[in-house]
């Protein structure tokens, strides 16, 4: 009896291989937690600082837990960012491009996955090239073109490329849809064709409904990347129409414009609270849709050969 229990304990503690046993498990958890803490350190610090008042900011004994919950920083940031109005515009140049880009790239992915096209390899090469070629190379002529169209400094400058599948990381989404549509059984399309459905009907009635996960994943990533994009948006929508991200980028001057005459000086707590307000919308989306982000890459089969 004693012998059995001894080996059982040994088994329990050390396991058959390193990750089965108690010690192995504990060290995996410990590593994940410690690395996770360091990894999230900037975020945690930002949250802690954003609710500090001036006294807590200068007090070296107050590190992580402020003595009281101080929300004045957020009130100031909301005002400086002109949060409500800016949020609406930000959503306009984030949601619309994300939806439109998802639709166009899905059509492209579907065509490449389902039909025989001569020169398909060349089309793939071009798609890959558009991924490797940084937008900086062709943004100046685009700027000139948009100027000629008269859409500079309007939301159209962001929406137009998205409509035509030339937006942010469009190439990645085409590949996601290509992989996903390729995995759908061919027999379904064939039986639809026998029943007299046209290619477009097959796409609408079979392709799209079965590709829900791919659509959701593509849309979510598109949404987040558009939200975070500032390089081209600062060039194309410029100085009058600000998104939240661009306001954060120019936070000091924004602060001086709105708060310049008050005695409140700009400090890091206010900056942090503004940063949190900027990430809040995507953070909420992430908390709700977390599973779709993390499992999306797997589910769409982008990692397949």
């Amino acid at each position, binding site marked *: 009896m004693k012998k059995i229990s001894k080996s059982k304990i040994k088994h329990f503690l050390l396991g058959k291989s390193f990750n089965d046993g108690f010690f192995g498990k504990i060290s995996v958890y410990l590593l994940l937690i410690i690395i996770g803490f360091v990894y999230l350190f900037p975020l945690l*610090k930002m949250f802690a600082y954003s609710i500090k008042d001036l006294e807590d900011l200068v007090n070296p004994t107050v590190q992580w837990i402020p003595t009281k919950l101080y929300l004045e920083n957020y009130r100031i940031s909301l005002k400086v960012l002109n949060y409500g109005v800016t949020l609406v515009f930000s959503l306009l140049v984030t949601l619309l491009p994300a939806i439109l880009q998802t639709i166009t790239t899905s*059509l492209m992915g579907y065509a490449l996955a389902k039909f025989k096209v001569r020169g398909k390899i060349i089309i793939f090469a071009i798609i890959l090239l558009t991924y490797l070629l940084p937008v900086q*190379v062709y943004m100046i002529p685009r700027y000139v073109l948009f100027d000629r169209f008269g859409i500079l400094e309007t939301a159209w400058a962001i929406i137009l490329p998205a409509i*035509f599948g030339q937006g942010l990381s469009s190439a990645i989404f085409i590949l996601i849809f290509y992989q996903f549509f390729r995995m759908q059984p061919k027999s379904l399309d064939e039986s639809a064709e026998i029943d007299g459905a046209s*290619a477009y009907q097959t796409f609408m009635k079979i392709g799209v409904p079965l590709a829900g996960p791919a659509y959701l994943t593509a849309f979510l990533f598109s949404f*987040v990347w558009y939200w975070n994009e500032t390089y081209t948006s600062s*060039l194309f929508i410029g100085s009058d129409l600000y998104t939240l*991200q661009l306001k954060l*980028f120019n936070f000091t001057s924004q602060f001086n414009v709105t708060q310049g005459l008050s005695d409140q000086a700009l400090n890091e707590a206010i900056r942090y609270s503004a940063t949190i307000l900027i990430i809040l919308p995507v953070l909420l989306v992430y908390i709700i849709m977390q599973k779709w982000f993390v499992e999306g890459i*797997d589910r769409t089969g982008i990692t397949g050969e």
Partner: protein
Amino acid sequence: MRKKNLNRRTREELVAWSFMSIWVIGFLVLTMIPIFTSLYYSFSDVILSGEGIIVTFNGFANYAQVFSSAEGFNFLRSVSDFAIEILFKVPIITVFAIIIAVLLNQKIKGRGFFRAIYFLPVIIASGPVINQLINQGAATVPLVEELGFIDLINQTFSESIARPVANIFSELIIILWFSGVQILLFIAALQKIDRATYEAAMIDGAGVWESFWKITIPALSNMVLVSVVFTIINLATFSENEAIQHIKTNMFALETGFGFSSAIAWLYFLALGIILTVFFLIFKGFSKDRRRR
């Protein structure tokens, strides 16, 4: 039956092109023509006037200006900084992503929770947010600076190498933040490995360490290449990257303008191509080396 004269093959192709037409039109008008126009601009003097823009061909003048002016020098320096930084960042990010992926692939509770945590930075890492974190000093582990690590780097290396290397240490956490997508890619690759392979290796007497190097790492090798390319492109187009900032600021600068900016954009693409090629060759060398053994 009126389409009888078209054979099936042609019809299929027409349908395919109708699906692709929106993208194709967009590519031609918004990407391909701009690419060639930009190439033309880079060899031209581009002047903005009231009536529009005047483009006059001037050969290699813009490129000559890059190598002879202060603006050009600043750009070239930021590109070389970027190249040195990326030589360090790519291995750091790749190794970190593999370690986290292997840890997350264990049979543990709360896997979904940990995965969500490690992916979180991808969601929020925009240029301005990262900029704020770095400027407020939240990007580094306090220990790194307190131990005088950065001073040590500044003393040991020459200025042109010390600057980018010191940068890496002062932004170490933020660099790790760029590994979220790669972690998921590696997890997906790990899950494709058949458990039986490990069991067979164990029966043959292989330890955990040996299994890791002989089974896990080879199975990940293709994904390493994907991850490296993604990392380089991701970092190269990140909005706070100094090199691409030059392209934008020079567009409207008095001494330079669209022509000069187009020229440095193309030089940047060239540099990116060289960096990608170098990493590709390194990768090829490694996988060949492993096969020989």
